[in-house]
């Protein structure tokens, strides 16, 4: 109980209590890394040094997503008692219609096996999860002696203590942090910009705050920034007058530590302010940086007026947010994760005449996840006048601490008596422990429609790097292990801001040794991935989907020898409305070995109309994605692809040596009638064009480019044999969402093939198309960027035509429905 003379300000301080030992968690963090690389290493901020600072969540440790419904959620309009006539008597203006009423508009959603109680019409995902036994609805939850002040009640919910108990004003999750033996920097996270809410504050530990937008200050690697970080860390180790000044220094120092750890969670988030919190929450868990509790806040639920509209929006946010969260959460975390909602109170039964409802008492809450004991829990409060509390308020059947008891004991592995200061029992909200086999099947979330991903802007190709002539970098080859940072944003027709990624054709020429090239976002950790492979003296191109890093740059690293590098950019991605990708099952649009105009002669040009071909619509397309192959050229040369009718650019798409069959993916803008031209520089060559997708403003999905990561390397597991098909699961792997993924951008490398041949990548389950994604000769290691439509099982298939070959597959991007 708060002191009777308490001011609101004191109540609020209660809710964000100054923590007398705020820096403890930080100290733990420093100790953790001191055991490994030491504090100096932390200052230099090597990503590898950071890894030791957090402990991945154990296979049987529970993870909790808390959703605070700010302002007091109206339980009566969330879990609707349509079977109780008093509901409609008291709420003529704001009631949700009964599904039993003929012709009802937007009635409550029915729940399987439950009569007279339904869900708000915007809670379709929750209805589905309930029917799959993955949603527990706790009815009539509250306190026996309700108070109607937001702050008083919020303080009680967040403290989680008994009224009048002697527990210190800490939060119940905060006390769990204090009690846990292995608390990390990121054990508890609050997503938001305000203070840390009380429930996440303990006596010795508290949650870390993360922005809903980015990982924040501290992740850059330029020398001047690094020297600054070092000084900031140093300031935090010096004594400074006053409690608060030292805590300022610690908070900033913590931010430096957090920034690069959590960066992977901030990829491909939706624009909506609320939804992106849910997406970031899933990303944080997927990042496997020791996150056990994530808190997000949505609302305003204080719907004193125009409730039907505002509350419905809130319900939609909750529904879509949960759906997005589960769809983005990696499968490996799903059965270790539970989500719960809470709010300070419900609303009064009697509606007010502002078409809203005033502060109330008992309400409902949701607990959701694959290990939850799905169904109804507690009793729905009776709405009969004789059963109500004073002032038309609902009587609680469940004390909210009974819910906490279940979460603490069954999910967080804590001792609820210690956290709550008393023994609670009576609920049974879980069917199995975290990570255990059993319980319900894992959730099958349906696809979520969010404006995720970037749209594509095709441009006529422009050369932004040529180390032979000093374009974009000094005129000298890149040496062994040499890293070249290439400015992309603001160069040529690529805008200086808002660009998330570019498509560029990267060519290695004149390498002095066999090796490979890796392209990745500047300042991101160096990935285990490659983009193109070359042998001594060869000229090898490959299209690269390059996510931009710090300063709008990408980094390129050459593995061995000296080589010149060329980069031609053919388009860029922005997080704005525009052209989006429609992936197609590959379709062979041209094969000059069997089709007109036959073999291409030196300096010959072929123009082909692709509109209305192979799934491409007849109009409205901005660019096409093609796999272009030069077959058996009679001399070394190159091909250039560009929109028909425009001046030919001085760039190249693929290079070949005599008799070398070379494929490359090409994304090209098209002319107004949907045509492209292909120029052959020298020698006679055959040409194959396979359509793999197109970009249009009216349909399609955005591309989410990611730092490359390796999905498959058969060198550890055995090669793919002749006519063999290897199916690869991509949905739910790494950053790719479990559901809704439509295509993936892969860099596919054939390693040491035993005979000449080709690989076809296609949607698993579909008929294998008459096309090729990658061609090679015996012993040649060849890479190509492949846009692969994903099959119904969330997989893509790789077909190897002849001989045995190893396959290495790196993920560089994906698109979702």
């Amino acid at each position, binding site marked *: 109980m708060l002191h009777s003379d308490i001011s609101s300000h004191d109540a609020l301080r209660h809710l964000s209590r100054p923590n007398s030992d705020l820096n403890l968690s930080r100290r733990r963090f420093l100790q953790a890394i001191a055991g490994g690389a030491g504090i100096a290493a932390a200052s230099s901020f090597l990503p590898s040094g950071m890894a030791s600072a957090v402990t991945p969540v154990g296979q049987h440790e529970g993870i909790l997503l808390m959703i605070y419904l700010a302002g007091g959620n109206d339980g009566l309009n969330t879990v609707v008692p349509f079977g109780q006539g008093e509901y409609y008597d008291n709420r003529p203006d704001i009631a949700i219609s009964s599904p039993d009423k003929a012709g009802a508009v937007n009635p409550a959603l029915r729940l399987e096996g439950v009569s007279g109680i339904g869900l708000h019409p915007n809670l379709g995902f929750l209805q589905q999860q309930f029917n799959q036994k993955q949603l527990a609805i706790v009815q009539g939850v509250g306190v026996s002696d309700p108070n109607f002040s937001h702050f008083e009640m919020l303080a009680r919910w967040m403290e989680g203590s008994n009224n009048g108990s002697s527990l210190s004003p800490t939060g119940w999750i905060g006390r769990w942090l204090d009690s846990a033996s292995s608390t990390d920097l990121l054990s508890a996270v609050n997503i938001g*910009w305000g203070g840390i809410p009380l429930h996440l504050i303990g006596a010795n530990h508290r949650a870390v705050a993360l922005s809903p937008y980015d990982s924040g200050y501290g992740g850059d690697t330029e*020398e001047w920034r690094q020297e600054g970080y070092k000084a900031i860390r140093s300031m935090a180790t010096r004594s*400074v007058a006053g409690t608060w000044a030292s805590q300022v220094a610690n908070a900033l120092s913590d931010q430096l530590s957090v920034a690069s750890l959590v960066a992977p969670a901030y990829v491909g988030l939706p624009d909506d302010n609320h939804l992106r919190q849910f997406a970031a929450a899933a990303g944080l868990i997927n990042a496997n940086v020791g996150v056990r509790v994530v808190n997000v806040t949505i609302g305003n639920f204080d719907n004193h007026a125009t409730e039907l509209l505002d509350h419905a929006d809130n319900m939609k946010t909750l529904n879509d947010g949960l759906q997005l969260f589960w769809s983005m959460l990696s499968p490996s975390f799903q059965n270790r994760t539970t989500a719960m909602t809470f709010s300070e109170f419900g609303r009064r039964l009697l509606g007010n005449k502002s078409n809203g409802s005033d502060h109330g008492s008992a309400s409902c809450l949701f607990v959701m996840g694959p290990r939850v004991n799905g169904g109804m829990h507690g009793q729905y409060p009776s709405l009969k006048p004789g059963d109500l509390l004073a002032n038309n308020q609902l009587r609680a059947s469940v004390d909210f601490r009974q819910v906490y008891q279940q979460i603490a004991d069954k999910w967080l592995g804590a001792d609820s008596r210690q956290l709550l200061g008393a023994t609670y029992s009576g609920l049974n909200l879980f069917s199995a422990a975290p990570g255990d086999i059993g319980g319900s099947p894992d959730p099958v979330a349906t696809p979520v429609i969010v404006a995720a991903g970037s749209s594509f802007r095709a441009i006529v190709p422009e050369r932004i790097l040529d180390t032979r002539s000093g374009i974009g970098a000094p005129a000298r080859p890149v040496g062994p292990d040499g890293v070249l940072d290439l400015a992309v944003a603001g160069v040529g027709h690529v805008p200086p801001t808002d660009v998330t990624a570019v498509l560029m054709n990267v060519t290695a020429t004149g390498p002095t040794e066999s090796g490979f090239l890796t392209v990745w976002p500047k300042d991101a950790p160096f990935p285990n991935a490659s983009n193109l492979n070359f042998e001594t003296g060869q000229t090898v191109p490959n299209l690269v989907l390059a996510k931009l890093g710090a300063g709008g740059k990408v980094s390129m690293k050459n593995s061995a020898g000296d080589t010149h590098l060329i980069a031609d950019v053919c388009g860029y991605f922005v997080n704005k409305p525009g052209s989006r990708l429609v992936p197609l099952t590959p379709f062979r649009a041209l094969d000059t070995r069997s089709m007109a105009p036959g073999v291409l002669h030196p300096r010959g040009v072929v123009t082909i109309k692709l509109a209305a071909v192979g799934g491409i619509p007849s109009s409205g397309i901005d660019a096409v994605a093609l796999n272009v192959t030069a077959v058996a050229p009679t001399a070394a040369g190159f091909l250039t692809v560009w929109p028909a009718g425009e001046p030919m650019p001085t760039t190249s798409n693929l290079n070949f040596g005599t008799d070398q069959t070379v494929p490359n993916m090409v994304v090209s803008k098209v002319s107004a009638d949907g045509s492209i031209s292909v120029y052959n520089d020298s020698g006679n060559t055959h040409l194959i064009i396979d359509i793999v997708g197109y970009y249009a403003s009216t349909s399609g999905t955005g591309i989410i480019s990611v730092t490359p990561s390796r999905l498959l390397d058969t060198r550890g597991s055995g090669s793919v044999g002749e006519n063999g098909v290897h199916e690869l699961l991509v949905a739910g792997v790494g950053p790719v969402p479990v559901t809704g993924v439509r295509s993936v951008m892969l860099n596919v490398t054939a390693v040491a093939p035993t005979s000449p041949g080709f690989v076809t990548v296609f949607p698993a389950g579909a008929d294998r198309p008459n096309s090729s994604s990658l061609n090679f000769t015996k012993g040649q290691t060849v890479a190509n960027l492949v846009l692969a439509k994903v099959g119904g099982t969330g997989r893509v298939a790789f077909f190897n035509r002849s001989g045995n070959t190893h396959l290495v597959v790196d993920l560089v991007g994906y698109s979702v429905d």
Partner: protein
Amino acid sequence: MPTQAADVAHLLHRAWFGGTKTQIAAFSAMNLADVVDAVLTTPVAPNDVPAPPPLLNDGVTPEWEQYVDLLEWWFNLMATSSAPIVEKMTFFWHGHFTSSHSAAGNVNWTYDQNLLFRSRALGDMHLLTQEMAIQPMMLDYLNNRFNTKWGAQQNFARELMELFTMGIGADHYTEQDIIEVARAWTGYSVDWQTDKFVFRSDDHDNGTKSIFGVQPAKNWNGPDVIDYIFTNSDKQLATARFMARKLWTFFAYPNPSETVVNDLATVFINNNFVVKPLLRALFLRPEFYSPTAKNALVRSPVEYMVAVMRGLSMPAKFIHPQWYGERMGQALFDPPNVAGWKNNAYWLTTSAMSARADLAIDMHWRMWGDKNDPVNRPNIHPLKHLEGEMDSRNYSKTPTQMVDLIESYLDVTLGAGTRQVLVDFVTNTRAGQHRWTEPQLLVLALVAPEFHVS
């Protein structure tokens, strides 16, 4: 008897947004009572209104830009006003009688409310409470515009007592009082056509109400309730104590002693709830100058941004308060809820500190820009001194002198530890002849812990 310079600087940081070296020197020669009187001096005409923001109501500017304009207008006033105490109290009232611009979406209401807070900044709180209650901004924010006898709406009634005057307390008011006070406030609404206050007698409940146990029950109206709170001896004591505690926390430190609260409450009551005598008493308390008070408050984001503006002679438009305020956790005109902002630990989250560091980085880019381009860059005198070294790399000033220089501009006293880090930074990076040494020194000073407390 002269006043210690440290005490003057402390007072000016708290009562104002900081003082200049000249002001501190002048005040130090005076005795404390005279200093406090000078600090509390407001313009001769208390209703003297500063020129309105230039884009307001020009008929063409979109609402968001008008909002940004209003923000910049107020930030500039806070940084440069000749009566900073008025701006500080306007800021206080904004966090006290909260309402939200993003909820109302009416720049004129926001502006009008701000003018009201400014006109009564150090004046009569009883009058101010009556006036703010019937401004469209408040009527909209707490939904009283929908409060009618056909269905009372408790939002304003509850917060009027819980957050604006008495605070929670069993002997202050009961749940039944809230229901009855809501009835008293029925009919006070906003006209849909004019967007002005309107009293709709048809919607007003003229029945008898039993409020605060006053017998016999009578036909209270809304303002009657406020009058009662400020005149009944029990209610006014509760209100005066509530406000004394809140103002002390705002200006001095949290958790004042009961003696301080009771003494200041008495002053407030004896002066009929006029704020200025209360502040005079507050700033004359020895506790205000105690070690407990010094550096006991974390600068709120607004205070931090104003300190940056003052330190670098930077007008508000270069600070982008519309972006950084929200990211630091304090969007001016848009408090997170009806209780306003909290303090100290509330500001110290990793994400909020990240935003403060980003603002510092933003400021340092000004040293790299075209120095002769007045559009991209104001004439930033303090930066020029740093830039001399940055451009020439002659290093005519020692690292220590560089740190002294920046300390003086930013009106901050750095501790020995922080100073050493900055001096080492300059010394070490100068060896590399980097042009970024001086700009990065600015960043480090702006994120130094001492600059975030007052």
